């Protein structure tokens, strides 16, 4: 079912537009900053690694979250909107296989979004700013090798973070009549979480939300990497709750719909 879900969703116009945006954003940003190479345009213009790190900072949480929320919502709701669910069951595809297909498709879409953006950002950065050590203001630079590992670690961490919001969108896609409604609520949750993150009055609520921990990947660039562990635990909890809800919703959904 993974093949079927990917073949079905990745060829949609909206998916192609989103992937094209993930390619175009770092290229456009690099082209805009090309004249400031060598650190004249801020930290991001020192090296390809700085550029990629800066791009990740720009994308997390809202833009990446939006992209993966789109994938999650359509993976959850498309079968019902097209009426194809009954034909999946008579192929026959069990609910377990159906859910597993959607879940792994979401994992791949999340990883693809992160990898596509970072790969293009690194390539653009190499061509425009060159391959140099990662420059840190007021501190010693990170070697290119250390910074590369940090970028890869950040990509993995961000992918897990994106899976949490994608899982929520998937569950809402299964719950609500239309994918666009699931997407709207997920994006509202994402933006609301990000906006409230620095409001001390709601701190006790914010710390249980997965988005609160999303920016901790920056600790991989010379900070305290152990701070990522509570972040990973929060994402795992959110994914577990959302996935369980999604499965229960699929169990309750009319198979003939």
């Amino acid at each position, binding site marked *: *079912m993974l*093949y*079927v879900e990917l*073949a*079905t969703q990745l*060829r*949609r*116009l909206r998916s192609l537009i989103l992937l094209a945006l993930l390619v175009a954003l770092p290229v456009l940003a690099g082209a805009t900053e090309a004249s400031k190479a060598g650190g004249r345009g801020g930290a991001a213009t020192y090296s390809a690694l700085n550029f990629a790190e800066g791009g990740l900072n720009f994308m997390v949480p809202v833009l990446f979250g939006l992209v993966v929320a789109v994938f999650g919502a359509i993976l959850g709701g*498309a079968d019902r909107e*097209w*009426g*194809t669910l*009954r*034909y*999946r*069951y*008579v*192929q*026959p*595809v*069990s*609910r377990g296989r159906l859910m597993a297909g959607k879940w792994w498709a979401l994992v791949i879409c999340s990883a693809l979004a992160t990898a596509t953006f970072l790969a293009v950002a690194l390539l653009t950065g190499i061509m425009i700013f060159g391959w140099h050590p990662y420059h840190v203001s007021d501190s010693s630079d990170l070697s290119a090798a250390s910074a590369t590992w940090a970028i890869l670690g950040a990509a993995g961490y961000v992918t897990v973070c994106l899976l949490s919001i994608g899982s929520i969108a998937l569950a809402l896609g299964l719950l609500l009549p239309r994918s666009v409604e699931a997407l709207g609520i997920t994006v509202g949750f994402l933006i609301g979480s990000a906006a409230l993150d620095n409001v001390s009055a709601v701190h006790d609520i914010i710390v249980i939300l997965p988005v609160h921990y999303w920016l901790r990947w920056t600790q991989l660039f010379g900070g305290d990497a152990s701070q990522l562990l509570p972040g990973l635990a929060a994402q795992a909890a959110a994914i577990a709750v959302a996935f369980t809800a999604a499965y229960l919703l699929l169990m309750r959904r009319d*198979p*003939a719909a």
Partner: protein
Amino acid sequence: MTDTVAVAAHGLTKSYGHRHAIEQVTFEVERGQICGLLGPNGAGKTNTMRVLVGLSRPDSGTARLLGQPSRLAAGVLTRVGVAIDGPAFVPHLSGRRNLELAWRAGGRTWPPPALEESLQLAGLGEALGAKKVKSYSMGMRQRLMLAQALMGAPEALILDEPANGLDPGEVRTLREHLRRLAERGAAILISSHVLTEIELLATHVVVMNAGVVVTAGRLEDLLGTGAYEFEVDDVARAGKALRAVAGVRTVTAHGQRLSVTAPGCSVKELNHALVSAGVGVGSVRATRSLEEAFLGLVGQDDAVR
């Protein structure tokens, strides 16, 4: 050993709230038979088919396909072709791509064994691979749905209104194709509102009304010898008299006319029963079309049995 009964419904009952969608539905379709499932809107045909293919769980009763219990996503469905509740496809993919994904979804290797034959039936030409399904007409989608149901060379077919949206030539081609499949041993259960089509195609019929099976059996038994229409002067008394005759299966009234199904009785015998009961018989007509038989069976307001 191959089970001759390919599709079996035994005492199927399904309710939604207080409303019985189907109640004690029982019939069987054997290999080589084409069984028409007939009934007015809301009779329970689609609900019965949903239960048979596992899309709906019955409150009681059992459904079996090719000798195995039917349930949601049951393995036996790999050997069954299903077209139910109309066509449904991924709109931004071509017809061929849709067929491929549907086939692969079941964990099977593309292409299916009867792909070419079913594509020939669908007759979609270049549109099959070149055009997205969202640009297809209703008839094209219907033919694609039939190709999807048939491409696996199924041993049993459950087809819900398969002729919807097809032109007369396409209906004829479909009819011939289904006949060939039945001749090869496939069991076919087909629901339709087009009674003339069922009359031309089916070997057996199941007639449903208000969620229950009104009659089930060979089409020729329903239409041929033993099907009569009487014009009488006292419908109530005539109905009572006819019901008392051994061999009479159904008696339904339409105004002053009574439709009688009595395969084991002669018209003379029935006429004698009526006259003996003091009923005046204006006319009697033997044999009838499926439409007449159907309307006789499901005539609602004035049915006497």
